[in-house]
């Protein structure tokens, strides 16, 4: 792909699959809604009971089905409803991000963060940040158009 086409093919409307844990991040997202904070409509929230429920396969699946980015959120360390769930998520996802980076997926497309139930403002800020980042990249396509070439 030449440089000129790259610029015209930037993604004006990226899709972000957003995983929320039920106990902290989900409540944080609720708070963002009830406090009438604005956050982009590009995110597709999926609520799971714990962030450790998210299999690396779910992330790969999301990219396969045409997501431009995946954002995983969970409780802060020590706050997990199931005590140690988010520590385990973190080990898995940190390694997955390294692997994806080595295959050529831009690290901006796959992020992880901790949002507590009181951090509605952080939720709005982080989703906006992620979507803004993805708008600067070309769409992550299906069927061989993938990779950030």
């Amino acid at each position, binding site marked *: 792909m030449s440089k000129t086409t790259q610029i015209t093919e930037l993604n004006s409307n990226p899709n972000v699959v957003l995983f929320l844990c039920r106990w902290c991040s989900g409540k944080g997202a609720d708070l963002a809604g009830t406090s009438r904070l604005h956050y982009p409509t590009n995110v597709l929230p999926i609520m799971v009971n714990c962030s450790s429920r998210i299999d*690396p*396969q779910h992330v*790969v*699946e999301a990219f*396969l089905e045409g997501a431009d980015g995946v*954002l995983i959120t969970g409780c802060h*360390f*020590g706050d997990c409803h199931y005590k*140690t769930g988010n*520590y*385990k998520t*973190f*080990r*898995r*996802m*940190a*390694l*997955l*991000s*390294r*692997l*994806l*980076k*080595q*295959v*050529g*997926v*831009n690290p901006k497309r796959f*992020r*992880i*963060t*901790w949002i507590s139930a009181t951090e509605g403002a952080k939720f709005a800020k*982080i989703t906006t*940040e*992620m979507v803004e980042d993805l708008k600067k990249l070309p769409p992550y396509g*299906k*069927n*061989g158009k*993938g*990779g*950030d*070439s």
Partner: protein
Amino acid sequence: MVDQKELINAVKETVSREDVRYIVGYEEGTYGFETAPSFAYTSDDARKFIFNPLCTKNLVVYPILEEKLPLKREEQEDDRKIGIVVKGCDSRALVQILQEKGLKRENLVLIGIPCTGVVNTKKIKDKFPNQTEYTDVKEEKNHYVFSIEESVQKIPKKELLADVCKECEYPNPVIFDILIGEETEVETEPTYIEVREFEEKSLSEKWEYWKKHFENCIRCYACREACPLCYCKTCMADFLDPQWIRRSVDLSENTAWNIMRAFHLAGRCVSCGECERACPAEIPLMKLNKVLEKEIRELYDYTAGLDPEEKTLFGTFNPDDPEEFIM
């Protein structure tokens, strides 16, 4: 170099024990530079056993692949032990399986062989393309000696050694019941030069590289079948409901399969190189495995397959894990 007679005697002695069912080892293959797995049920079968640098295969897959037929009425289950001839990497794969409680240590007899590295059979075939009969290879210090058509050829070890053996840290079996020969001295420490070099490339270069290889993948799952650690009863690639990975052979599905295959071996891969050896499309699968191995060593200071009592990487956590990756 392993003494052939010592190996055969050890196998004979072990297989004639009452509590041992059979022993898996290596025998001469039927074509070119290939060795084949050999099963000794009686002490007579032990005659065929060999060990040389052509013995590339990881035999730890066999006790898991074994089919268990339903028992007839009043029939007792055969719980006699299975013997395996193991090199350094094979024994680490076994330790990893023991850690995950896939096999029981008391059901196994291990004949350990200190390994001095195995050859890359693809490279030999390129050197001697017309060799159709089984040819023995001997190791002499830093050379491999081939006797082909009454002429003796010496080839430096570096040229033919398998890539995974070049940075091998554990050539000696980690666990064994009988050790044959003397332990090999460990000279190298892994530097992960290839991984580090690859890391410095740009994202699009990386993707172009993998695209070229993943396009060739025919999804035969030979990598999975050859891997001693891919022993799930139903692989996630075979599930139909939910269907994790579509079965069509196209680039995006191939990429998903190869990423997930590598990830399912994170913190478990012992770098025996079986996947790469089995791959008919010559995809450098070890390159993906090595990335994870390097990261795990740097981030969590963990090496797979050393202690059967240790807990697995993903089964444990440490509150002090580095957090630079969090947004």
